[in-house]
């Protein structure tokens, strides 16, 4: 924690805060009926996306999941263009073709959210293969849900990455559930043992604790970049909202959600830690809060007012040439 300078801390907070406010706001806006499609909110898991992506550079890649807003923001996607995308408007990051579940910005190394559970890990291997083949020094990082750990593609990718000694990092975010099904039920055995069995270097971190995530990420990314082969990081974390907006989360035990929100909020914990250690004061943090609030207000405002895409877009960009 002490190794991080104030600018870095501010940056970490800003990003986590941006994700949180982005998601909180979508939670409020979604019932109003202006956002066309469903959204899977990342609130509660911010420390994971930010802790890892702050250890990545421009030449590094991330492949995400259906719950992709946090990863996208952390990997540097334009927040306003993301909002427009979710609103299905012109100026959307994917020209309103993809929506929440397909947010991507290849120029930022963000290879896309993915509507297919387990769709991402093979793409991670591919991006890592590019880095290795072209000797760019880059690494590719894949976020994986606990539910996705059951998909064949995930395990195929672990093996493939290990066989080809790819510079790939797989981050398993165990937020306790895949839809309404607990990971304690659907994920047998122990995923860290599995990853070891596939020949990956394994790490663990608590996803509520930004500093733990950051340090583990630094180590996993550093060793992977150094050519030590692919790594696997298990992170226990929690999502604050339902699987999708509208999910009543009745599969949670009584008081479970309150407990999580109270005791495992990565933003509160971060704030407590940095203020206690007198590294940042409420004034600096409050300034960030206000800046983020303005950014998200503007993003929603601009998205709401942005024009819809022209109908001619329907048949555009299927092919480059046909």
């Amino acid at each position, binding site marked *: 924690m002490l190794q991080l300078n104030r600018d870095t801390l501010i940056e970490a907070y800003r990003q986590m805060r941006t994700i949180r406010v982005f998601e909180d706001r979508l939670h409020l806006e979604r019932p109003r009926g202006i956002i066309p499609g469903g959204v899977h909110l990342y609130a509660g898991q911010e420390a994971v996306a930010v802790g890892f992506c702050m250890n990545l550079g421009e030449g590094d890649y991330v492949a995400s999941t259906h719950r992709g807003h946090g990863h996208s923001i952390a990997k540097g996607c334009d927040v306003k263009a993301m909002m427009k995308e979710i609103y299905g408007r012109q100026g959307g990051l994917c020209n309103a073709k993809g929506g929440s579940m397909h947010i991507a910005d290849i120029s930022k190394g963000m290879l896309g959210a993915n509507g297919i559970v*387990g769709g991402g890990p093979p793409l991670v291997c591919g991006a890592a293969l590019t880095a290795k083949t072209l000797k760019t020094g880059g690494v590719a990082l894949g976020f994986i849900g606990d539910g996705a750990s059951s998909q064949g593609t995930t395990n195929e990718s672990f093996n493939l990455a290990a066989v080809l000694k790819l510079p790939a990092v797989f981050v398993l975010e165990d937020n306790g559930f895949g839809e309404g099904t607990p990971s304690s039920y659907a994920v047998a055995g122990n995923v860290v043992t599995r990853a070891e069995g596939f020949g990956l270097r394994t790490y663990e971190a608590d996803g509520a604790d930004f500093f733990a995530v950051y340090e583990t990420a630094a180590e996993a990314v550093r060793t992977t970049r150094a050519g030590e082969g692919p790594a696997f990081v298990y992170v226990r974390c929690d999502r604050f909202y339902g699987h999708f907006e509208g999910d009543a989360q*009745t599969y949670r035990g009584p008081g479970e959600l309150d407990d999580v929100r109270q005791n495992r909020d990565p933003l509160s914990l971060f704030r407590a830690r940095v203020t206690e250690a007198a590294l940042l004061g409420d004034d600096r943090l409050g300034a960030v809060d206000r800046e983020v609030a303005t950014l998200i207000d503007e993003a929603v405002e601009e998205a709401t007012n942005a024009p819809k895409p022209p*109908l001619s877009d329907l048949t555009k960009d299927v092919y480059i040439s046909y």
Partner: protein
Amino acid sequence: MPRKTIRQVITETLAAEMRRDPTVIVMGEDIVGGTGSKGQLDAWGGPFGTTKGLIAEFGPERVIDTPISEAGFIGAATGAALTGLRPVAELMFSDFFGVCFDQIYNQAAKLRYMFGGRAVTPLTIRTRYGAGTRSASQHSQSPYSVFTHVPGLKVVIPTSAYDMKGLLTQAIRDDDPVVVFEHKKMYDVEDDVPDDSYTIPFGEANITHEGDDVTIVAIGRMVLFANEAAAKLEREGIGCTVVDPRTTSPLDEDTIIECVEDTGRLVVVDEANPRCSVATDIAALVASKAFRALKAPIELVTAPHTPVPYAPDLEDAYIPSPEKIAAAVRRVMEDG
């Protein structure tokens, strides 16, 4: 007769068949929801509530929440079917067939043939299709042509609550592997459905509108749109016969051919992508077996050769509409 929605009828049929036959089990992702959790069981009943309530009556041995492993659990359903159960597996969205199709098309569909007729695979796969929910390219497709292409599979696409009950009952009792497609936007479609069980045989089309001028063969949700178009065209003086094949494999070729022989004109409507589709299949059937009856070129009203876009206006433009169907009918009327 009681009015019921497609959603209700699915649950009711599953329950009825499970009561009737102890070897019927249902399995899929979150078809219960909350299995093993500290909260409520049956938290989901599937993402559209179609299996809600089954766990209470039949328990976790027969209503099984699976891990997110479509190849694993659909293959398991196949293996279970091969050895004495009668599983109903739910593939949450048919868009996901790409992760599990081997178990469907190389295993379930072919085991009987490859084993020389010495295997029985009474597997039912329930799955969802269709655009219109603003869910973009990977949650909005209608890939039933791929299933129809495969020898050994039967493919069922019900378009009313009445048909859903009769066809799903038949699917579960059928000794061949059957894939049932449910449209995400049709769960609230409501009609008269008897409480008692009945089956509708596969390969028997349903005529949902009658008229002398043009035959419209429509698939799935497009039957509703075709009926709408036909009603409108009737007021314009154009008579349409709307044919709902109900199952694309087997396909009721006779009814389609008879209708085209009566009307002399054919419009095929399919919300799937246009290449190598059920629409081209039906057009080719007629062009080869009812050619002499045709007075005008066959018109195909389909989605364009594009993925499903996210933005509402684009997605609406992607889906064939009653207006586009009516326009195609008018074209074949003008054309001959």
